């Protein structure tokens, strides 16, 4: 898994490449925490290069969404969610907890 964080005017974009499981999820949490630690609470998670995500990755996203929304009026939104991952998200009941966008830049514009 590779993670790349890019700064925009009103938000940061965290792009995930590869596979997120129990082994790599701590790295994703760390990247999201680093953004939150700078005081940026609007985050786009770009999943266009994501191949796989287990519940360990879901938990990392949920924990960040909680902090951003509850304490800081921010939001984590998801962009370009691959079909298989979207299906697992639906099973887990995560679709109502995250706004999703077809395109990362469209997601940036929404925040």
């Amino acid at each position, binding site marked *: 898994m590779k993670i790349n964080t890019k700064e925009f005017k009103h938000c940061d974009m965290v792009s995930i490449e590869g*596979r997120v*499981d*129990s*082994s790599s999820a701590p790295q994703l949490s760390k990247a999201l925490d680093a953004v939150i630690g700078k005081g940026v609470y609007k985050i786009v998670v770009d999943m266009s290069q994501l191949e*796989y995500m*287990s*519940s*360990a990755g*879901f*938990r990392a996203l*949920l*924990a960040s*969404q*909680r902090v951003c*929304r*509850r304490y800081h009026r921010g939001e984590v939104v998801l962009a370009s969610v691959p079909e*298989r991952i979207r*299906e*697992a998200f639906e*099973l*887990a*009941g995560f679709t109502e*907890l995250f706004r999703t966008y077809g395109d990362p830049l469209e997601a940036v514009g929404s925040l």
Partner: protein
Amino acid sequence: MQTVTFSSTFDVLDDIRSFVGEQARGAAFNEKDVYSIQLATDEAASNVIEHAYQGRLDGKFDVGCEFRKGGLIITLLDHGEAFDPSKIDEPDLKADLSDRKIGGLGIYLMRKLMDEVRYETTQAGNLLTMVKRKG
């Protein structure tokens, strides 16, 4: 049944997904089912590593895979702490963000993704059996 032994570290999850993925593709499951089988097995193995062995890195567990009677049978056998599925609450998927519990999701996904999920305590160890039927 083809069986592979793995160590109780999260680094093995990639190899476990490749192993069951190959078996599922060999049995001509479609890509959606292959993903489901890989995800369910990953969740099961993550639970073994995290809960049965509780962070011990020297544990071993076996993953078995076999296609029989129209279904892919996946077994996980470990020698760690026994798992009592009745102690795991189903996650409340209707709960809003602040009430949403962060655990219990793995086993919930396993049950949703597979047609059968069974836990047994045997003389050989803790045995989990999952079945995905074709079509």
